[in-house]
C-alpha cells in the first residue's frame, strides 16, 4: 500500500464516520507531477530518499507507528486546507523567465542545433525538477533557490536558452524574492529531500548567471 492509498483508506473511514476527510493533493501518483508533497515525520516526502510521497510505501513504517503529517510550511505557500498548499508562487517564478522565446511555426529538426552530450545530460538532470516544493519545505530559510536554480540551469545549459540567459536569471531570482521566499545559506537540506536529486550545482549556476546579469 502506498502512503496516499493509506490516506485514501483513512479518508473513506472518516467519511463513513461522518467526519471530514483529510484534504491532500495528488495527481499522477507515479512521481512525476509534483502535487503530493507533505512533510512526513519531519521530512519532506518522508524519510525514503529521492522518493515522492506517492511513491512511498507503508512497508517502510512499523506497524501501529504514529505518523506526523504536516503541510509544506512557508509564507509563499499558503495552506488551502489540511495538507493542501497553494504553490502558485512557483508558477509566477516560471512566468517571470522560465521559458525560451522561439518563433512559432513547424517544429525544427531535432538535430538542427547540436548540443554537447555533457550539457544535454546536465540540462536534463536539472529539467527533471517536478516543482513539488519539497526544497522550500525543507529549507530552514524557506528558500526556493533549488527550484529556481533547477529551472534556470536547465535552460542556461542549452543553446536555445542563451539569448535570454542573463535576463532570465535576473527576472526569476527577483521574482523569487518578491514572492517572499528566504535566501539560500547553502545548508543542503533541499537537495537531500528533493525527489529528483537536483544537485546544489544548479544553485551555483544560478548565482553565476545572476551575478553576471547584475554586473552588466
Amino acid at each position: 500500500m502506498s502512503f496516499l492509498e493509506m490516506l485514501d483508506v483513512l479518508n473513506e473511514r472518516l467519511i463513513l464516520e461522518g467526519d471530514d476527510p483529510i484534504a491532500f493533493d495528488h495527481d499522477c501518483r507515479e512521481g512525476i507531477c509534483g502535487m503530493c508533497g507533505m512533510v512526513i515525520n519531519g521530512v519532506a516526502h518522508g524519510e525514503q530518499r529521492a522518493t515522492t510521497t506517492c511513491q512511498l510505501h507503508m512497508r517502510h513504517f512499523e506497524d501501529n507507528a504514529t505518523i506526523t503529517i504536516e503541510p509544506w510550511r512557508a509564507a509563499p505557500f499558503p495552506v488551502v486546507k489540511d495538507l493542501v498548499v497553494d504553490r502558485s508562487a512557483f508558477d509566477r517564478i516560471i512566468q517571470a523567465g522560465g521559458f525560451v522565446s522561439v518563433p512559432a511555426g513547424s517544429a525544427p529538426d531535432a538535430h538542427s542545433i547540436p548540443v554537447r552530450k555533457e550539457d544535454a545530460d546536465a540540462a536534463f538532470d536539472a529539467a527533471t525538477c517536478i516543482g513539488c516544493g519539497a526544497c522550500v519545505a525543507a529549507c530552514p530559510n524557506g528558500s526556493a533557490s533549488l527550484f529556481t536554480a533547477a529551472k534556470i540551469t536547465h535552460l542556461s545549459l542549452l543553446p536555445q536558452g542563451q539569448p535570454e540567459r542573463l535576463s532570465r536569471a535576473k527576472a526569476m531570482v527577483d521574482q523569487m524574492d518578491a514572492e517572499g521566499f528566504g535566501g539560500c545559506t547553502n545548508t543542503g537540506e533541499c537537495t537531500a529531500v528533493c525527489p529528483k536529486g537536483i544537485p546544489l550545482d544548479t544553485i551555483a549556476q544560478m548565482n553565476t548567471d545572476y551575478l553576471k546579469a547584475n554586473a552588466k
Partner: protein
Amino acid sequence: MTATIERGAATAPVTSPAPVKKPTRKRPRGFLSSSNGKKVVMAVTGAVMVTFLILHMLGNLKIFISKESFNEYAHALRTLLEPLLPYRTVLTIVEVVLVASVVLHMWAAISLARRAHSARPVKYVAKKSQANGYATHIMRLGGVTILLFLIWHLLDLTFGVVNPKGFDSSPADRMIAGFDPSRWWVAIIYFAAVVMVGLHLRHGVWSAFQTLGWANRDRNKGLRLGAGLLSAVLVVGFLSPPLAIMFGVVQ
C-alpha cells in the same frame, strides 16, 4: 484497523498568511536588496576577513621566534610604507576596510535571517534535518559569538583596557600577560571563540565559493576539504601562542 488520528497540529494554528503580494515594482530592485546580492556581500566581506585572519595568525606565530620579532612586527604594521605615507596610514586603511567588512557581513546576515524568519511564520511540529543541520545552527549562533569575542579581544589586546599591562606596554608583554595562567578564564573565552571561528569557516569558506558560483560537483570535494583544512590550520595557529604562554614555553 485500530489507527487513531489526531488532527490538531495540521489544521489548527495554520493561519493562511496574507496573500502573496504580486510584485508591483516597475524598476528592477537593486542588487543589494536581493537575497543573492546579500549573499555576495557576505561572501566577499567574509573573504576579506579570512585573508585578514590568515595574516593575523602568521603575525601571532612570530611570538615563537622571539618577543622582539613579535614587537617589531607589530611596529612594522604601523610604519608600513612609512617614508612614503604618514605613520599608521596603511594600518588605518586596513582597519577601516575590516570594520566595514564586519558591519556589512552582519548587515547581510541579519537581513537574510529576518527574511528567512518571515518566509516560515508557522514552524513545523516535527522537523528532522536531512543534511545534519550544521550550517543552520552554527553560522548564525557562531557569528554572534565571534562578534562578542571580537569586542572583548579589541578591548584586551588592542586598546589594553581590560589587559593587566594596560596600554603603555609592548604588544608581546600584553599578549603574555593577557594569557597568564592566573587569567585562565580569558583563555577559555579565547579558545571557545577560536573554535567557533573554525566551525564558522568550515562551512563559510565552501559556502562563499558556492555563493560566487565557483563550486560544482567536481570541485565540491576539494573545496570542502580545503575549507576544513584552512579552518583547522587557523584554529591550531591561533591556539598555539596562548597555549605556549600558559604552559610557560614562551615567557
